[in-house]
């Protein structure tokens, strides 16, 4: 399930905490409200923690497995159990996922020297250019846009899940990992969808700051952005690896 549909669910929840947060914003003082500054600063903190974790994962690649598993569990906890506790879970999520990314990047870098910096540069390049497009109004996220992006994301997750299950039985969906035209085309499509998820994250943060959601939503918005950035980075890494292995 995507994080965006989870947001939808708790946004429409009967839980009085969330009802108050979304509909009765005047009960919060100015200092308790979500701001753009806060969300950006918290994203920077999470990025720093992720880089710290990646440094550890790069030097000790065995940390990749616990990092990936613990990070995944923390993401599920943050999304489904306690978005209000995102301030406590998101930093650990970023650090553990950083460890996983560091280990994965190490193996890619051994095979294709220089690929890590290319992937990092492209990921942040896409982040900045889409942020500009969003802020200036060049890209206008609408309900149809969200429906399209969320359904494509769900489809990709389902494809990965089926491929993961099939791998236990010694088979798999071959074209996902192939470096043929279809494999590269699929990777390009997935990078595109991951990038469009960034636009949804920007809109969610902007909307939250506009409505004056509670302060902890800054952490949740930053966490949401981190999840998308990590996914985007991994997909760009896979795409570059496919291109260079041809």
């Amino acid at each position, binding site marked *: 399930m995507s994080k965006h549909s989870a947001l939808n669910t708790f946004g429409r929840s009967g839980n009085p905490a969330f009802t108050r947060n979304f509909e009765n914003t005047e009960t919060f003082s100015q200092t308790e409200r979500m701001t753009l500054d806060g969300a950006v600063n918290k994203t920077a903190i999470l990025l720093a923690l992720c880089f710290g974790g990646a440094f550890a994962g790069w030097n000790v690649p065995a940390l990749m497995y616990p990092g990936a598993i613990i990070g995944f569990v923390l993401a599920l906890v943050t999304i489904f159990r306690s978005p209000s506790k995102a301030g406590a879970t998101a930093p650990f999520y970023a650090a553990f996922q950083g460890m996983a990314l560091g280990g994965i990047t190490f193996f890619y870098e051994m095979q294709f020297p220089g690929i890590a910096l290319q992937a990092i540069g492209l990921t*942040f390049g896409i982040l900045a250019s889409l942020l500009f497009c969003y*802020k200036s109004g060049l890209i206008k996220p*609408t309900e149809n846009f969200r429906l399209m992006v969320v359904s494509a994301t769900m489809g990709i997750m389902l494809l990965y899940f089926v491929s993961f299950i099939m791998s236990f039985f010694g088979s798999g969906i071959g074209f996902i990992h192939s470096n043929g035209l279809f494999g590269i085309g699929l990777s390009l499509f997935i990078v595109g969808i991951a990038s469009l998820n960034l636009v949804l994250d920007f809109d969610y943060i902007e909307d*939250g700051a506009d409505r004056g959601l509670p302060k902890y939503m800054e952490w949740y918005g930053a966490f949401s952005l981190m999840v998308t950035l990590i996914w985007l980075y991994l997909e760009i890494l896979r795409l570059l690896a496919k291109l260079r292995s041809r």
Partner: protein
Amino acid sequence: MNTIFFGLLAVLSLYIFMNLGKVRASKKQMDRDDRINWGGKRRRDVQQNRDGSKIIEGSAEEVDDGAKK
């Protein structure tokens, strides 16, 4: 050369993100009717329908149960 280009791209992009991220989106972006409804607010027309259905228009009349007896 590759290293310098992608390194600079990453640093410059982060700088742009840190600065542009704190700026509010343009009016063209924010003042739209077709914005995504993240909070799940009720639409005004639906709310009016609900309220309307609960109101009985007309004058109130006192009912005396004992009058029939």
